[in-house]
């Protein structure tokens, strides 16, 4: 049992990649460290549980990376996906630090492997965790425990005592009891608020009731809210979240990677009225998958259906639930509880608009529609080979962008712009500093590891002084 009467040098709130990197790095600086994870042990680590890789800059081919990925190229990718909504100084600092993380994280027991089957496009830029995100977490926890970091699970922080930008103590609920934890410095690494439906409703209204949350139910943003309420400056668009279209049959929480569907480009997507609403072939899937959550969220009832025929059934990664199958479009509509006549009309007018071309899903091919609104600009082929298939999809929320402003020391900035005396932040809770919008695969883990390591080191230094 952890002795909460003593004062720790560093208190880390959260239990994912960023939190553990902070705890390890603080401990390696000689600080005494307490980690408070709000989830039970099995669910420890928040979204890190569901991750699988990290994007780090590197100048040469490595054992597992197929080519160099320079700092400049990383920066250009970040600039592109965020549309410029990033802090250049912090982002370039993170990218520079990411090079060293490739080795540092291995020193903490994490193992790399080449990119997974079905993810070849990431083989040059992203390093994959052997065994996935939970294996990575397990390694970090083992290292932290061996170093003497104290860890409490089911330890939900319900209050923070902060005086004029200085952290004093945290009140936590542990089972039936509540207790207080004191520390000289705080690292907040407790994630975003994507699992807090009430909070999401502030921006999305009742539609949020139809959102599925891809990670654990524990990412409720309580720490983020306390910090912002107590004078920490905010960053990132509070109304936005990373949302993809996932299988509507997925559980409300924690369905993870296996409910994602990669077949939009192979068919058409219709809403509850059996009408198409967006160009399914706008760009290659890795560049477009992240817009479909929001697109579906904008449709009536927040539901849509990906419809395709038997010619493409095995062209994409398998997923958890089998597609719904029927011999005719009308029968398929019946199974989906759509108006059969309306779906037949939509498919017929789509088929009529498809122009001949040479299909190649790896490039922007010349298979497109003409005279159709909205158009399908690539990979358009007639749906005419039964049986026909459908996946129902809903918005699947991955993470939120709202966070706490930090500087290069990962130190939080207060609303008046001055740095906090002893409060640091790492991971999703501050990701909005470098990732104001959009996403590039693996960048969340880069933010977590780089700023976690920095935050731990700086918090330990801070506690010593």
């Amino acid at each position, binding site marked *: 049992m952890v002795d909460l009467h003593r004062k720790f040098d560093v208190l880390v709130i959260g239990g994912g990649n960023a939190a553990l990197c902070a705890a390890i790095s603080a401990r390696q600086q000689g600080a005494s460290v307490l980690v408070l994870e709000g989830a039970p042990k099995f669910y420890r680590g928040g979204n890190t549980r569901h991750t699988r890789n990290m994007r780090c800059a590197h100048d040469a081919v490595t054992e597992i990376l197929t080519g160099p990925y320079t700092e400049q190229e990383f920066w250009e990718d970040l600039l592109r996906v965020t549309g410029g909504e990033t802090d250049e100084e912090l982002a370039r600092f993170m990218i520079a630090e990411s090079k060293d993380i490739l080795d540092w994280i291995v020193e903490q027991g994490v193992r790399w492997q080449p990119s997974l089957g079905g993810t070849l496009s990431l083989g040059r830029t992203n390093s994959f965790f*052997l*065994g996935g995100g*939970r294996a990575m977490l*397990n390694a970090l926890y083992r290292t932290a425990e061996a170093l003497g970091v104290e860890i409490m699970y089911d330890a939900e922080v319900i209050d923070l005592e902060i005086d004029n930008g200085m952290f004093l103590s945290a009140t936590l609920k542990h089972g039936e009891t509540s207790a207080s934890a004191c520390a000289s410095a705080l690292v907040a690494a407790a994630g975003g608020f994507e699992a807090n439906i009430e909070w999401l409703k502030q921006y999305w209204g009742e539609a949020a009731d139809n959102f599925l949350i891809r990670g654990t139910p524990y990412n409720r943003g309580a720490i983020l809210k306390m910090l912002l309420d107590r004078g920490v400056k905010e960053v990132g668009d509070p109304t936005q979240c990373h949302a993809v279209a996932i299988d509507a049959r997925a559980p409300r929480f924690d369905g993870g*990677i296996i409910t994602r569907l990669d077949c939009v480009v192979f068919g058409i997507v219709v809403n509850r009225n059996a009408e198409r609403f967006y160009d399914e072939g706008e760009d290659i899937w890795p560049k477009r998958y992240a817009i479909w959550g929001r697109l579906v969220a904008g449709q009536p009832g927040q539901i849509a259906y990906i419809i395709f025929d038997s010619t493409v059934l095995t062209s994409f990664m398998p997923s958890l639930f089998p597609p719904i199958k029927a011999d005719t479009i009308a029968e398929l509509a019946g199974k989906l509880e759509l108006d059969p006549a309306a779906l037949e009309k939509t498919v017929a007018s789509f088929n009529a608009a498809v122009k001949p071309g040479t299909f190649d899903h790896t490039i922007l091919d010349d298979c497109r529609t003409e005279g159709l609104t909205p158009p399908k600009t690539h990979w358009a082929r007639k749906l005419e080979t039964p049986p026909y298939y459908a996946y129902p999809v809903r918005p699947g929320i991955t993470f939120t962008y709202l966070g706490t402003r930090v500087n290069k020391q990962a130190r939080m900035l207060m609303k008046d712009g001055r740095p906090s005396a002893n409060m640091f932040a790492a991971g999703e809770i501050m990701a909005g500093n470098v990732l104001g919008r959009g996403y590039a695969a693996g960048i969340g883990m880069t933010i977590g590891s780089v700023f976690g390591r920095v935050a731990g080191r700086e918090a330990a230094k801070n506690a010593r002084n």
Partner: protein
Amino acid sequence: MHGTKILDEADRLMTVCNSCRYCEGLCAVFPAMEMRRAFSDGDLNYLANLCHACGACYVDCQFSPPHEFNVNVPKTLAIARADSYAAYAWPRVFAGLFARNGLAISLIAAFSVAAFIFGFAAVNDRAVLYGIHTGPGAFYALMPHSAMAALFGAAFLYAILALVMSLRAFWRDIGEPVGMRADSPSLWQAIRDAATLRYLDGGGVGCFNDDDQPTDRRRLYHHFTAYGFLLCFAATCVGTLYHYFLGREAPYAWWDLPVLLGTLGGIGLFVGPIGLLAAKRQRDSVLVDETRHGMEVAFTVTLLFTGVTGLALLLWRDTTAMGPLLALHLGFVFALFITLPYGKFVHGLYRFAALVRYARERKMMASGTTGE
């Protein structure tokens, strides 16, 4: 859907795992799974026998219990694997021996030991049974070499026949045409993978047994056991060659090759099984197929007794205890031979065949050709 409920569950899990693939670097099971989108009974039995039960995919899985997806690959494949041993047993009438395997093996071993003891007592008078016999041919004072060779030769040939027929059924069921010769690079790859237990290390992290720490040492103890077994087998072969080609009769001096091989093997069969049995006791119950505890233990214990009685015979062969010890040792060796096709021993055979197939599949995928 499938022949059994456990294969249905294995199918469900492979669908989950094929949608995730995070574990593909841990072992051979997941890359083999990725080569398929649908799974026949044979495919699932192939994957089940490819699994080395290292436990890493359970500890690393974000969907393992208490998650509602309830993904427990090691346990599910362990049950399917044990089922497959019975399914491929030859002749079919003996498949039932797998149902209560611990009891079956214990009874067979007890009868075998008793038969040798009573047989020795019936054939030999007390003076011979409890006499001191030394020098070449000493053992044969108690049992004529011709009788020993005929009895054990027959048992051994039967075991080989039954094992070959079982393996043939497995090979056919996992989709390989009968009579297909495994190409030599695949065979060589499988020999190396089996000899080093390449896939019993969680992809490099280590194996899991007691809990979520990779502190397992089953690979080491399995090496002691398997190589101990092979050394003992080699000792028997060398002794046979000595007997027939050099005209030299057992027992041999302690420095002679059959005794050196047998002693080293005996030590392996002492240390290895004890380590494996201890690991089995400590194994996290969440990974275990409890209903097969008897089978898991019976073969290991038979090996342990074979090793221990062999070592005892070596130590006390110049005393009056030689007669009873010889009966005991021969009893266990005989039981071991005739139960080889009907116990845990077959895991090595099927796993090796699965490794050969995996090596072939990898090669075919790499060269872009498809299966037959």
